[in-house]
């Protein structure tokens, strides 16, 4: 090891001595006609260090401009993804026993639109290392999208949309010659944490409409997610924001559990709508009243 690093040092020091830029007697930018002019660009750089700094910095300026402009485009796309994903979530919230099919159909279409219009823009901008370099720019949007997609999927099938599935749905957006945008594990988990909040609202809302089984199913689902997440969250990169989400998530779980509990305990007193088909209700058979 020592020999190789000594050899390396010799090699480096020799190359330093040979590189024109390390010539000991070097002149300031005002060119000295006595100095032999060679056609190597390295020497030209030495001769006019002043302009070479400018040249170098103009490349840095170009780099930074391109990066910042790309970042802006990504942020804008991410905001659109967020906004439209939220609309999908609100759409799914309108679900009830009666309108399930239409609500889900519209939500499906809207979600596809988010994907094809806005996520598509992200796909176009982000390649290779940009996935991670610009993650802060697009992460909120992607999280919201994950939230919307998983929310929809749960209402449609009762199951969790997997990361693999959601990424598979994004593959068609990418040009086959480019690297496809794939949602990373961290954004998926963050989106999942937000999902539980929406599910909590859905559960409470469904209970008010009398759909107690749906609420209980939501309760089990959210419990499972929470349990699985407890093992995984501490291992995440910068787990601190996820940890706060976990606190909120537990509160959501407890809210749902309490709501389900209230329904069970006060079952007979619980009057979602006058006139219900629930066999345990004392209002069985009473005609519906317009509220």
């Amino acid at each position: 090891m020592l020999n190789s690093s000594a050899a390396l040092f010799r090699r480096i020091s020799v190359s330093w001595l040979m590189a024109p830029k390390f010539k000991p007697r070097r002149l300031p930018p005002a060119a000295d006609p006595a100095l032999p002019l060679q056609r190597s660009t390295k020497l030209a750089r030495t001769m006019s260090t002043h302009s070479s700094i400018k040249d170098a910095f103009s490349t840095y300026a170009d780099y930074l401009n391109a990066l910042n402009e790309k970042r802006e485009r990504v942020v804008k796309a991410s905001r659109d993804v967020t906004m439209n994903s939220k609309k999908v979530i609100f759409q799914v919230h309108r679900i009830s026993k009666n309108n399930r099919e239409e609500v889900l159909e519209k939500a499906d279409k809207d979600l596809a639109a988010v994907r094809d219009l806005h996520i598509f823009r992200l796909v176009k901008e982000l390649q290779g290392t940009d996935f991670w370099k610009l993650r802060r720019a697009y992460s909120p949007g992607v999280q919201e999208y994950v939230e919307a997609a998983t929310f929809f999927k749960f209402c449609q099938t009762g199951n969790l949309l997997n990361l693999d599935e959601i990424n598979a749905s994004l593959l068609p957006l990418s040009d086959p010659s480019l690297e496809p945008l794939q949602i990373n594990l961290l954004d998926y988990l963050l989106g999942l944490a937000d999902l539980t909040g929406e599910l909590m609202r859905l559960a409470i809302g469904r209970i008010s409409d009398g759909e107690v089984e749906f609420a209980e199913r939501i309760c089990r689902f959210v419990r499972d997610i929470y349990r699985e997440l407890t093992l995984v969250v501490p291992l995440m990169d910068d787990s601190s924001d996820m940890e706060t989400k976990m606190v909120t998530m537990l509160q959501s779980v407890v809210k749902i559990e309490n709501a389900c509990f209230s329904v069970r305990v006060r079952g007979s007193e619980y009057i979602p709508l006058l006139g219900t088909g629930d066999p345990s209700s004392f209002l069985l058979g009473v005609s519906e009243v317009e509220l």
Partner: protein
Amino acid sequence: MKAAFRNAYCFTLSRYSINPNPTILHLVPAISTFPSLPSSVFKNPPFRSPVTATLCSTSMASGDSDAPQTSPSLEKQFEKFRVQLEDSGSLRERIRAVVLEIESATRLMQASLLLVHQSKPIPEVLEKAKTQINVLKDLFNKLAEVVRECPGQYYRYHGDWRTETQMVVSLLAFMHWLETGTLLMHTEAEEKLGLNDSDFGLDVEDYLVGICFMSNEMPRYVVNQVTAGDYDCPRKVLKFLTDLHAAFRMLNLRNDFLRKKFDTMKYDLRRVEEVYYDVKIRGLATSGDSVEDQGTQGQP
């Protein structure tokens, strides 16, 4: 067991960041509606289990027909996540270990360089400091190797070596200036650290911040040089720093860390101007023009 697991993991992990294998794409027909994906569509890697089997829609209205335990696909997915996160966690630990070594080599380099403030002859000081450059070169290559295990994720872990890299760049640039009077360029800095490879390079913003840190050293250096009797130093430093500041003004910066560091540069410039002025008006500086012909090399 771990080896096979790791292979499968890296294959899938790379799927999450970049897809080096474009063949996966033509296995997937145009998917217009989601989430209906038949499992046969996927080329299953070892542990991408038949999660899609659970895609059969269960009617929500049908009531409590599902078994109360966690669906196996849910558990499988999270188990996979746990493994992935553990792997990335251990990668991060290895990265941190190398970064600690980089930090200690940097400290050694910095300690030797501090001697210039005490007017030790520059070549001597540089000689000592330069020995650390190889150490750093090796360490950065070690870091590159570790990161190379998960391609495309340079910036995922970049925060772990960002500050140290900035320090290294600032020291290298300062040494380069002491030796040559010119600015170390980004490409030169990369070369010195053996990072010319495309996958693990020197981030441009890290380089720029490092240069700003270097400029922060200038006022102190100039003051001590004048105290030690080198009255020509302020002129050289002033010229250098003016050019540097002018070059930096060409950049369009956001209001981030780099911008803040750049803002400190003008204070450095001001202080050097003041020292130059102090020296000049007292007639201590040797006449500026004649010195230029003798070259800008520092102390004999």
